[in-house]
């Protein structure tokens, strides 16, 4: 027993030393705090870095590109081993990425892509938003079978790329099913309050009994719509099926209560695949493909939603 203890103790002393030797320094330029999902992405990135023994230098850009450019310059000056960049806009990155390239520091883009020559960054880890819409649409096609199903849609902020792509993917998925059609579509600005207001209007103009399903471009709007459906005296999840995207903790609570049916995860773990790529690169110089698509996992009421809620609630959503 004593031997074991002393062994463990010496191991405990040794481990940090080993980790220090391997501990790469990674700079992470985050957009800022714009949504719960982004807060979760930051939390998960920090967790991933800690698990792998990296020293993560975090810079919050407060939604400004010039802050991100400054952060990248300072990372280059500090001689970090790699840079993670969640770009706030798509354009204007060439110059600063050129500087990183000259310093031989690999740059990996997280969750958004940029308009720049591909050789300026190592890879981009993003989700495919059209695919997310398709997963949601396919679930609905399977769930309703042959029954007639008029759908109402809560769109994201008008003109935003997730709203356009998630609409497109869903429409492609239901195109083949003649029994499913979108009868009303309005923007809920990705917010709970507007999701509720617009759903109230849908329930009156269409009549609750004439709506078979709701497709919301994010979970927050779905959570607002669920309240509107309840206040109209209908049962969300039964009378009106609800499918949305993001997989935030509160939608799992709703699914646990049977008030929502399915959600497609936009994983906050973009850093995990990015770190995997870096490790392979550092080991034997393997270059990854220019785009790594994260998994758009479907959760339904059959999953253990209580457990999922517990695992997600402290991520900062």
């Amino acid at each position, binding site marked *: 027993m004593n031997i074991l203890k002393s062994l463990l103790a010496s191991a405990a002393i040794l481990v940090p030393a080993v980790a220090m030797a391997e501990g790469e320094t990674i700079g992470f330029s985050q957009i800022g*705090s*714009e*949504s*719960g999902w982004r*807060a979760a992405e930051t939390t998960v990135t920090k967790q991933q870095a800690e698990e792998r023994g990296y020293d993560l230098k975090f810079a919050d850009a407060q939604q400004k590109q010039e802050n991100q450019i400054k952060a990248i310059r300072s990372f280059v000056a500090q001689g970090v081993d790699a840079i993670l960049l969640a770009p706030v806009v798509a354009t204007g990155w060439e110059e600063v990425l050129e500087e990183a390239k000259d310093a031989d520091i690999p740059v990996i883009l997280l969750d958004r892509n940029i308009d720049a020559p591909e050789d300026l960054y190592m890879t981009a880890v993003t989700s495919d938003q059209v695919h997310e819409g398709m997963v949601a649409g396919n679930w609905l096609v399977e769930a309703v079978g042959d029954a007639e199903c008029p759908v109402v849609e809560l*769109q994201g902020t*008008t*003109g935003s790329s997730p709203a356009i792509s998630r609409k497109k993917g869903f429409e492609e998925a239901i195109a083949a099913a003649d029994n499913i059609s979108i009868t*009303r*579509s*309005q*923007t809920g*600005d990705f*917010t*709970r*309050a507007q999701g*509720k*207001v*617009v759903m*109230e*209007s849908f329930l*009156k*103009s269409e009549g609750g009994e004439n709506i078979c399903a709701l497709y919301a471009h994010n979970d*927050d709007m779905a*959570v*607002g719509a669920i*309240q509107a459906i309840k*206040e*109209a*005296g209908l049962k969300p999840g039964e009378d009106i099926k609800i499918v949305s995207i993001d997989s935030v903790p*509160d939608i799992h609570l709703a699914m646990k209560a049977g008030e929502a049916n399915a959600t497609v995860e936009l994983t906050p773990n973009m850093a995990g695949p990015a770190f995997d790529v870096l490790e392979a690169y550092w080991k034997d110089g393997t270059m990854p493909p220019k785009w790594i698509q994260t998994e758009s996992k479907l959760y339904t009421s059959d999953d253990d939603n209580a457990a999922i809620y517990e695992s997600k609630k402290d991520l*900062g*959503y």
Partner: protein
Amino acid sequence: MMKSTLKRVMPQIIILALVLAANFLVFRGFFHVEFQHGRLFGNLIDVLNRGAPTALLATGMTLVIATRGIDLSVGAVMAIAGAVAASAVVGGAHWTLAVLLALAAGAACGLWNGVLVAIFRIQPIVATLVLMVAGRGIGQLLTEGAILTFNDPGLIRLGAGTIAAVPTPIWIWIAVACVVGLVIRRSALGLLIEAVGINQTSSRLAGINARVLLIAVYLVSGLCAALAGVIVAADIKGADANNAGLWMELDAILAVVIGGNSLLGGRFSITASLLGALIIQGVNSLILLSGMPVEFNLVIKALIIIAILVIQSPRVRHSLYLLRASTGPVLRERPKPAPRTPQEEGQS
């Protein structure tokens, strides 16, 4: 008194009637109100209910604008108040205490604005801009950037519940408007506020304590905004500091302007501002019911608002007056020259 009030708000009543009629044209069930699951249910109720935050903000904003000021911070104050109330109930406080704390936060914000304007003599648009930008940050700090959800039935009732089958927010905004209106018009306060708005220096020389009065109107505006913030948070059972009250200050100012009140201060009518708030909500409802593609939302809203403001402009009103006078049987009085600002006509 009653008759002059009616005359003052007649343009707003006509416009509201037109907007509601347009709603009826796009959706025939618009005026249908039924009793369902213990609450009144219908589009008309929605307009009154969803108009609550704007109506509350417009009540406070009318007073501020009457003093020739403006309060840009009300949207941010809503976010702060919602965050305070949510944090309090999540922390275990009774919901009445949570609402009182939210109101206290709103009062503090109003006091801050009032002191900057009245004591430090900073221009209102600049003074309140500070809190407009910083306030949302304070709200986000309280909720840590996430949506802070709560399940306290007492607090939720304020936003999503009903009293006597009518949604609680409707009771709240009507009650607040009545109390503010009575206090202002049954006392000399309204007259004093108008005096300060028209000429601060001469009203001070006439013995009006302009400083206290200015601080008081910003305080009332802060309180109204806090109440609106509590309602909005209670409605979705969560404080969303990123989005609660976002751009609401502009809707509130628009409601006051549609109400025919001049941004240059002076005479004001709270009733007209409230009608303005309902007109805005009526237009929002029209857009939702019309089923037009979302890309048209803001264009439709802009066109309707422009039309409303043009109809109310002094030039169009004067032309209408001339038209009426020339076709009428007897010319009772000579046509007056075009009034410079709409608020110079009529009185609330």
